[in-house]
């Protein structure tokens, strides 16, 4: 007890040093670990599965952005496909018109272009709420791709633009298949962006987001600038959308209006709900579901030899049914289901221990 008075400062510092790693570094290390897992996954799977993994990657960042906006800040966006559209066309135009730009610059500019659009949309959105906001963002998703028809020579009209992105350094051509390399780049970009998103969500801004979501009046009474916070949420979310679109364009070598229909925006929102509203892990499950439910239900339709009209529409129907079932069973989505399961396991273990 006598020691206590002598060195109080080191006492306080000691436990702090144990968790001295700053959160940004922790998240970066986690991202690095995740990237290692992805690399291993792509090495043990075939090239086409690599494409699916990469697809999950760009959907993940889009869904994560939307989760931040809808789940954390409480703003519904039915128009996130529009930000993907902007990102995709930015990459497409840069690759075609400025071929000497390196890929990372293209992707950064795609994110920036998405962010700029998000800033504008957010400025309008901060004044709207509920169904009006949903309607305004839906208009974005419907209207923006129509731009391509206004400027057919520049944006390629309904046909869109196609191009080939060369990302492999000459040293790895012939060593690493192109799709695998592309998958790595997609995931590296996605994980780096996620680090930033996680940092925002866990930081002060993230607390502001949640405060605005829970009660705008209370938030503004606590000194949070509600309007500015909402616009910032839109900005971050749109940057993610722009990056997702840019990565999609990079991966598939195409940007066409037919790929950015309102249905895309709706399925992104559905993925957010399915994965778990407001949870970044949920964004991952949502992205996996987007890619794999479609694939599985197509395989199912093939196996069952349905007549074609049924088989053709089965993937959509299955997706709908799964969405309804998950929301009924786990209102907090797949991630909510996992949490419930973990809680059950814990309590049963505790019960066993007590016995």
């Amino acid at each position: 007890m006598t020691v206590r008075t002598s060195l109080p400062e080191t006492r306080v510092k000691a436990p702090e040093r144990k968790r001295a790693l700053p959160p940004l570094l922790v998240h970066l290390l986690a991202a690095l670990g995740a990237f290692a897992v992805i690399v291993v996954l792509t090495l043990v799977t075939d090239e086409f599965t690599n494409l699916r993994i990469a697809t999950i990657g760009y959907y993940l960042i889009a869904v994560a952005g939307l989760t931040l906006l809808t789940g954390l800040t409480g703003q519904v966006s039915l128009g996130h496909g529009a930000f993907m559209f902007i990102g995709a066309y930015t990459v497409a135009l840069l690759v075609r018109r400025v071929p000497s730009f390196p890929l990372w610059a293209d992707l950064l500019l795609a994110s920036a272009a998405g962010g700029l659009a998000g800033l504008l949309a957010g400025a309008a959105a901060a004044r709207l709420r509920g169904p009006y906001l949903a309607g305004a963002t839906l208009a974005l998703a419907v209207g923006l791709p129509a731009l391509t028809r206004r400027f057919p020579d520049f944006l390629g009209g309904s046909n869109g633009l196609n191009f080939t992105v060369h990302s492999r350094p000459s040293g790895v051509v012939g060593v690493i298949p192109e799709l695998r390399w592309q998958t790595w780049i997609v995931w590296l970009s996605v994980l780096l962006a996620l680090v930033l998103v996680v940092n925002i969500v866990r930081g002060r801004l993230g607390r502001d987001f949640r405060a605005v979501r829970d009660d705008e009046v209370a938030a503004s009474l606590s000194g949070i600038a509600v309007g500015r916070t909402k616009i910032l949420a839109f900005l971050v979310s749109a940057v993610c959308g722009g990056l997702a679109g840019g990565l999609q364009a990079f991966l598939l070598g195409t940007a066409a209006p037919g790929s950015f229909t309102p249905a895309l925006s709706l399925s992104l929102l559905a993925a957010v709900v399915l994965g778990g509203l407001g949870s970044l892990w949920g964004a991952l499950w949502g992205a996996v579901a987007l890619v794999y439910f479609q694939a599985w239900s197509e395989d199912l339709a093939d196996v069952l030899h349905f007549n074609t009209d049924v088989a053709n529409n089965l993937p959509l129907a299955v997706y709908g049914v799964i969405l309804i079932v998950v929301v009924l069973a786990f209102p907090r989505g797949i991630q909510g289901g996992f949490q419930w399961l973990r809680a059950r396991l814990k309590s049963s273990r505790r019960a066993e221990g007590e016995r």
Partner: protein
Amino acid sequence: MRSTGIAAGFFAAALALTACGGAGESDGGGAQAADSAVGVTKDTVVIGTHQPLTGPAAPGYSKISVGARAVYQSINDGGGINGRKIDYRVEDDGYNPTRTVEVVKKLVLQDKVFAIVGGLGTPTHSKVVDYLNTEGVPDLLVSSGALAWDNPQKAPMTFGYQVDYTREGKIQGKYIKDTFAGKKIGYFTQNDDVGRDTQAGLDQFVKDQAVVRQGYDSANTDVTPQLSALKGAGAEVVVCACIPAFTALAILAAAKIGYHPQFVVSSIGADPATLSGLLQDFAKRGGASVSSAQLLAGLIGTGYLPDVALTSDPWVAYFKGIHDKYIPKEPFTNTVMFGMVQAYTFAQALKAAGPDPTRQKVVDAMSSGALKGPGLTPFGYSKDSHSGYTGAFVFKINPDVTTTVIQPPAVTDRGTGAITPYSGERATPDQVNLLGK
């Protein structure tokens, strides 16, 4: 701020990983050897296609692969081509270019197809041509009339199938100029290559008569504004370069506003049986009932395959036999037969590639120019041309939804060359003798 420094280091390293050269510059990855036999085994040949089984182009076009599958089944039941059965994989892309890229990569990488046959759509297929040519995958009989497929230098593996939109536009334009001299003409076209290439052909003949040009996007099914504009400009003849759903929508929208021009419809959207089904369907959804026969009577269209109603035609009779045996529940439409002829033509090329087909041998067989079959105009295939059918005939829909040919087949080129009547002989199914030795 140590952590910021570390973070910056990470980002810099990550950026460096992608920083080698410009994204739009070539990385020197060369084309693969075409002379491989991927997808060919002792007793099967795996081929694939991308089709709009759902989405805006599905009405009508989702039946093409149904027809093709029936032909492959009949070939397989007859012992296959040189003893190999054809394993036909159909992937749905919903007419969405992103999905097209995904499913084509799936077919090439996972299903390891020998060739892509009849990939449908201009906005969709144009996104995979580079990929297929780089990978050396034969890309045969594309279901679109865009000029882009006929480019043997840049896309040596890609071959067209249907008559291209410019050739067709020229034939339509000349017919209109001859028949409707002095009348006002309106264009109603899809806002992509279909519209652009068709207009390039039409304008060679009726540019002076064209008073109004309207376009549509397949994503927007309300075409009343365009039809009102056509009506407002007083167009007496409306050339419709539309997919089937939009021919039907245009006819319904015109009827709704009391506008009765003479429609002239491109082959892609002029199949009477498909149209009458769509008209009924769309009208019913709109809460009305219409007589599709009445709406279609007098409509002028262009085509290059014999009409399904012409049962005296040896090829129609042949395909009707396959239809009745394998897909009796499907209506036998020109769209179904489009798929059947496509499948048959591929089978001919596969046979011509010999007992040990390779990708290069199939491409050589296609460009040999020896393929003759059901079409009323010839293919343009040669060493220097990969264009499909080179001409069309003009027909009119009768009040009982059969058709009458009102101008016999004529052929032309994709440039400004003359249109000349074609009277070459077709080989009959017996002469082709696909399953014989």
